C-alpha cells in the first residue's frame, strides 16, 4: 500500500513518517512540501523522498494520504487529495473555520473518499479503559470532568502554531479539540454549551494569539466539564505538557493521566530534566486504524463529523470569550 504525506508543516508529520514505515505492507512514498528549503531539510533529516509540489506526489499512484499542513491549508490539500480519489487522514483541528470544515465534507462526499480526523488520544489504552469505566457505570452518574490539555507554546517546533492566519487561533485552536473529542466519545454525547475565558496572558510581547484558556462546557447528558487549553507550561518543563481527565461521579472517581508512564531523565543533552515516556504510542494505533480502514474498504472509526463537532466547540469558545457569556450550541450534523 502506497501512502504519501501532503505537507510536512505539522510537527506530527515527523512521528507519522516513522510510524507508517513501521506498518507491514505500507510503503511511504514520500512527502510533498512547497517551501523548498524546508522540504530539502526534512528530506535529508528523515531520509524521505521529497516532492516540491503536492500534485507530483498525488500523481504517484497512492492508496491514501496524510494531510499535515498548517490548519488553514487543510481544505486546499483535502480537495486535491479528494479529487485524486484518495482516502485522507487529516491533522487536527479539522480546519481553521467551520466554513472550511464544511467544504472538506463536500469535497470528500463529492469524490466518494473516506475522511479521518487525527484524534490519536482515542487510541490510547488509558482513554479506552476510561470509556469502559464510564459506560460500564462503575462511577455512577457523572457530575463532571476536570480536563487538562495544557502545554508549552509549540512555536519553537513550528512557528505557524502561533500565527493566526495559518493556525486560525492560538492555544484554544491547538488544544480544545482533543478534550472536546474525548468528552464526546467517552460519553456518546454532544457539547451543548460553552463558556470560555481566552487571552494572551503568557506571551503578550511575542505572539498575537490567545495563549491562556479555560473552558466550562455542558454536555447533552448534563455532565459539566472544564478544559484547560493553555500554553501555560514553561519551555523548560519536563515534557511538552499533559492530557488529563478527572471524572467525578456519584459512585467514584477516575483520574486519567495519559502520559503518566515515564521515567525521570536527567541528561546533559536537550532538557536537563525530562520525562521520557514508555506508554504505548497512540499515534501508531491511529495510523494502523487509517491503514486498516483502507485495506478493509470501510469508514475509519473517527470521521469528518468528529473533527467538525470538536471545531464547533472551539468556535463557540472564541465567541464566548468575546461576549463574556456562555454560548449555546444546537445539535447539528
Amino acid at each position, binding site marked *: 500500500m502506497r501512502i504519501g504525506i501532503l505537507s510536512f508543516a505539522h510537527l506530527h508529520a515527523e512521528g507519522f513518517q516513522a510510524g507508517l514505515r513501521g506498518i507491514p505492507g505500507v510503503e511511504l512514498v514520500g512527502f510533498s512540501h512547497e517551501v523548498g528549503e524546508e522540504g530539502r531539510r526534512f528530506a535529508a533529516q528523515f531520509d524521505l523522498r521529497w516532492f516540491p509540489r503536492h500534485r507530483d506526489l498525488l500523481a504517484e499512484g497512492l492508496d491514501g494520504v496524510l494531510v499535515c499542513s498548517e490548519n488553514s491549508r487543510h481544505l486546499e490539500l483535502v480537495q486535491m487529495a479528494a479529487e485524486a480519489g484518495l482516502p485522507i487522514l487529516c491533522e487536527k483541528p479539522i480546519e481553521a473555520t467551520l466554513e472550511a470544515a464544511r467544504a472538506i465534507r463536500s469535497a470528500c462526499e463529492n469524490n466518494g473518499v473516506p475522511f479521518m480526523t487525527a484524534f490519536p488520544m482515542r487510541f490510547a489504552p488509558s482513554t479506552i479503559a476510561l470509556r469502559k469505566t464510564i459506560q460500564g457505570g462503575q462511577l455512577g452518574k457523572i457530575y463532571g470532568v476536570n480536563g487538562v490539555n495544557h502545554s508549552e507554546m509549540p512555536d519553537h517546533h513550528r512557528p505557524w502554531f502561533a500565527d493566526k492566519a495559518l493556525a486560525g487561533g492560538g492555544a484554544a485552536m491547538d488544544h480544545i479539540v482533543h478534550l472536546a473529542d474525548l468528552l464526546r466519545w467517552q460519553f456518546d454525547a454532544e457539547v451543548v454549551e460553552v463558556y470560555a475565558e481566552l487571552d494572551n*496572558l503568557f506571551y503578550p510581547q511575542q505572539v498575537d494569539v490567545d495563549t491562556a484558556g479555560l473552558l466550562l462546557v455542558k454536555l447533552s447528558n448534563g455532565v459539566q466539564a472544564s478544559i484547560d487549553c493553555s500554553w501555560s507550561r514553561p519551555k523548560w518543563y519536563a515534557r511538552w505538557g499533559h492530557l488529563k481527565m478527572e471524572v467525578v461521579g456519584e459512585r467514584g472517581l477516575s483520574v486519567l493521566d495519559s502520559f503518566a508512564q515515564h521515567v525521570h531523565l536527567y541528561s546533559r543533552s536537550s532538557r536537563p530534566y525530562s520525562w521520557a515516556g514508555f506508554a504505548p504510542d497512540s499515534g501508531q494505533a491511529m495510523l494502523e486504524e487509517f491503514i486498516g480502514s483502507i485495506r478493509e474498504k470501510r469508514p475509519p472509526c473517527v470521521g469528518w463529523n468528529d473533527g467538525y463537532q470538536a471545531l464547533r466547540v472551539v468556535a463557540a469558545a472564541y465567541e464566548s470569550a468575546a461576549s463574556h457569556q456562555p454560548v449555546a450550541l444546537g445539535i447539528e450534523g
Partner: protein
Amino acid sequence: MRVGLVGSGVMGEVHAAGWRTTAAELVGVYSQNAAQAERLAEEQGVKRFDGLEALLKAVDIVDICVPTYAHKAAVLAAARAGKHILCEKPIALSVKDGEEMIAACNAAGVRLFIAMVLRFFPQYRLSRQLIEKGQIGSLGVMRLKRVSAPPNWAEGGDNWYTDEARSGGMVVDLMIHDFDYARWLAGGVERVFARLNRAEEGHGQYAQVILRHKSGPMALIEGGWAYPKGMFRTSLDISGTDGLIEWSSDSAGPLQTFTLSRDGNGAGVNIPVAGLSEDPYALEIQHAYGAIVGNQPFEVTAEDGLEALRIALAAKQSIATGKAVSL
C-alpha cells in the same frame, strides 16, 4: 490573655489544640450542645460555661467556632462585650451580615480575625512568596482543587454543613478557601462563571468555577463533596510568564504509614494533613494571637474574608442563573 471558645464541634477541637501552642490561657468553652462542650472542656481541662454571656465576662478573646449561620449573633455579642474575636470562615452567609459584623467590631474597637486557614498552609504560603519574588513572572492561569467526601457526622449529629441555609453550602463553605487564595495571588475578581451538578440522592455535589481577575489572570477552581468516603484531594497549579508552580496532595508526605487494619471512627469533616510540625490551624491562631497582643495588623483581614464570600456568592448566582456574573 484569656480565651474562651464558643462552639465545641470539629473546629472547636482543632482551635482548642491551636490555643495550646500559644501563651494564651484557654479559660473555657460554651456551646449549645452541652454534652459535646462538657467532653471538650474535660479533654482540655477547662471550664464549661452555661451561657455565652458568662463566658464573655471571663475572657479577653472569644474564638467563635459555631456553625456559619450563628456567626453574626456571636460576633455581635462579643463586640458588644468589648472582646477581641476570632471567627471561623466563612465570615457570614451574606455580604450584608459580614459588613454589619465588621462595622460592629470597628465601632466597639475590638479586633476581628476571620480564620481563613488556607493562608497558613505552608505550601500555599511558599507559593505566594515565590510569586511575590517574581519567580514565575506575571500570573497567567491558576488551577486550584479542593474536593472531599460529603461531610459525614457521627450518628445523631446535626449535619448543618449540608444544609445550604445554615452553611451556605459547599460553594461557600469549602470553595471559599480557594476563592480567597486566588484573590490573594491575583487581586480583585471581575467576572465569575460557575457550574455545579448534584447527586440524585444525598449531599454529593461537584462544582467548577472560572474566575477572571481584574488584573488579567484567570483561575479554574474545582470544589466538591463528591469523592468516596475518606478521600480529600487538594492541589495548586499556578503558571506565569516566567515559570510554574505545581503541588498536589496526591504526592507523598514526609511520612507514610501502612497498617493492616484501619478502624472506622474519625472526625465528621476531613481535614487535610500538612507536614508533621507545622499545623496550619495552630499557625493561624498563633498569628492572630500575636497580632492582637502586639496590636499588629492581621495578614488576612476581615475584609478579605468578606471579599472571598462575595466571590462565593457570585459563583452561586452564576450556578443558579447559568450566566457569568460581573462583580
